[in-house]
């Protein structure tokens, strides 16, 4: 059995939407009115979420992970670096994944380099730094020309890596970013820089970039078949184009996991929360917001049109579909172990980034899920203590 590391993913959803939300609004992104957000409730909700994340640290997750998302109900973390700062104070042991900063959305990547370096120093070198392009909707939020997405991403990435790892001061001359003095104070603790993860869909460009730099690639809310293709591509690119064998630590996947007494009971219990998260929140989007023109390369856009993947993604899904396609993992302890084992043994994945709090789940249920995971699932995938195996058999025969 191969091993897996466990990463506690938190979206910090806003579950308090009115009953008629689904029919009244056509999008849970971009234009969803912020009058639906109640700051008083928000104060209480953030603090409940922090307590939950602290528990994940105590229960043994290897890291806790927060994303960056804007103007929506499925994730209320517009500034992941602020969230990261809070977590450096509340999370004592686990690593802290900021996965990731949406580089093209921000005019000043030097600021991202500075903030992550600060957090790395404050946390004693526990930061994992993800970089993302931001999803289509966010190009509307920030009025960033989607045609420039890929090159802004690449150039910001190059600047940040240099800012972290090259002695300053030096000048950076780019197409979009130009700095006469790159000389960040403080520098990160981790050398040459904090680990970088690239979350993504099946976009060739993202997988190629990740494979080239040996960055872990993390698939997000993806059906198993697509994940298989993405991993296959990553491993092939690593081997044939970049000349190395991709280790499991470079292949991660992000999925909601729910454990019940039996498969059937688990499905029944999880249904409303999963349906809300996928159908009412994350994938409830006006189609135009998902793929702003120029956001995808011509080749990716053509592939999507041919396969109809865009429409599929936005269609309402039953929990059974989501389970069958592998977007979510729901079942008894044995079923969850079996599915994770498939990912690590057959797909060579080494990291599971699991969403435990799904939508409006009550706190007690979340706590129970955390405990089930920690007690019954995680130990299966941890390296066994070396001593147990290395007992020399000969001793007994003497």
């Amino acid at each position, binding site marked *: 059995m191969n091993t897996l590391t466990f990463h506690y993913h938190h979206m910090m959803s806003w579950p308090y939407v009115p009953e008629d939300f689904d029919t009244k609004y056509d999008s849970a992104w971009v234009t969803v009115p912020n009058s639906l957000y109640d700051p008083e409730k928000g104060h209480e909700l953030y603090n409940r979420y922090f307590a939950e994340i602290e528990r994940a640290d105590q229960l043994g997750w290897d890291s806790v992970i927060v994303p960056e998302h804007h103007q929506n109900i499925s994730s209320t973390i517009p500034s992941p670096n602020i969230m990261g700062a809070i977590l450096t104070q509340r999370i004592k042991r686990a690593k802290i994944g900021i996965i990731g900063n949406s580089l093209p959305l921000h005019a000043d990547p030097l600021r991202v380099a500075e903030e992550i370096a600060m957090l790395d120093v404050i946390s004693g070198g526990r930061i994992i730094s993800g970089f993302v392009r931001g999803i289509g909707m966010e190009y509307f939020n920030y009025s*960033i*020309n*989607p045609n420039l997405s890929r090159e802004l991403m690449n150039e910001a990435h190059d600047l940040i890596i240099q800012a972290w790892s090259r002695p300053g001061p030096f000048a950076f001359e780019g197409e979009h970013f130009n700095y006469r003095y790159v000389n960040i104070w403080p520098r990160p603790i981790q050398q040459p820089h904090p680990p970088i993860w690239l979350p993504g869909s099946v976009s060739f460009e993202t997988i190629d970039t990740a494979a080239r730099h040996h960055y872990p690639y993390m698939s997000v809310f993806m059906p198993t078949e697509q994940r298989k293709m993405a991993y296959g591509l990553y491993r092939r690119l690593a081997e044939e184009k970049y000349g190395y064998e991709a280790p499991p630590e470079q292949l991660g996947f992000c999925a909601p996991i729910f454990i019940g007494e039996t498969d059937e009971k688990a499905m029944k219990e999880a249904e409303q929360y999963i349906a809300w998260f996928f159908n009412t929140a994350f994938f409830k989007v006006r189609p*135009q917001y998902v793929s702003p023109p120029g956001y995808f390369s*011509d080749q990716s856009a053509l592939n999507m049109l041919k396969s109809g993947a865009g429409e599929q993604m936005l269609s309402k899904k039953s929990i059974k579909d989501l389970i069958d396609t592998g977007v979510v993992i729901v079942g008894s302890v044995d079923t969850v172990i079996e599915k994770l084992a498939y990912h690590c043994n057959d797909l060579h994945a080494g990291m599971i980034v699991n969403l435990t709090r799904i939508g409006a789940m009550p706190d007690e249920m979340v706590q129970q899920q955390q405990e089930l995971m920690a007690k019954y699932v995680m130990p299966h995938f941890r390296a066994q203590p070396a001593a147990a195996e290395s007992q020399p058999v000969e001793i007994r025969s003497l």
Partner: protein
Amino acid sequence: MSAPEATRSTECIERTIDVRGLATHLFEAGDPTSPPLLYLHGMLTANTWLDYHKALAQNFHIFAPDIPGFGLTERPAWMRDMSDYVLYFRDLLDTLQLEKPFIIGHSVGGWMAAEIAVWYPERVGKLVLANALGLRVKGTPMPDIFALSPEDIIGTCFENMMAAFPLMPAEMSVDYMFAQYKQFASLASLLWNPGYDPRLEQRLVHVSSPTLVLWGERDRLVSPIYGETYHRLIANSQLVTLTSTGHMPMFEQTEAWSAAITQFLSQEMVNA
């Protein structure tokens, strides 16, 4: 204006020319001895040859190129904002040997026409800005076309859906949708943020040619306030507003629209 001869041909020549290395697809029609006219299409009308083009070809030697990134003219990667387009159009005028043609621009093509007239006033005989965007009119932003479905874009542009028929694809093929994606990517490079140039207002003082600002009174994409603003800012301009039509008068009132243009372009240049 002479009466159109029954035999006068409005058949067009369709060809691809090299504009400083950029293969440009265009339609050309009309009597080569008639005054030359460059027609810059709007956001939905590249690679079309329709009744309104034919009406203009009765009296003018018309050139209707596909603007790079639209129709059959590819947009090279380096071409990404208005300044690249303006320089391209100067090259296009040189390639076509048009010293000082009339220039008509509709919608996004109208913004381009206005920019050409700002930067190269000596290359513009007369200017027609038809439902042109480009200006910042505070308090009246254009709707976000990138947030609209294809049906809603047509619904916003047209008052009479039947008139939109020539723009409807025979089928919603992958090829068609891919071409639309690429056109909208080009549009995004010009209009995503912002869909105007705040400095254009100040710069319009450089437009020296007689100018017709021609609008549909019900334009819900580029409000008639934009037309009034262009008219106010361009010294030698006149404003003509067509009633009962919106962003696409050339489809809905082909005759009135082309007559207004023909009359304006055929006037003696009093102030020139």
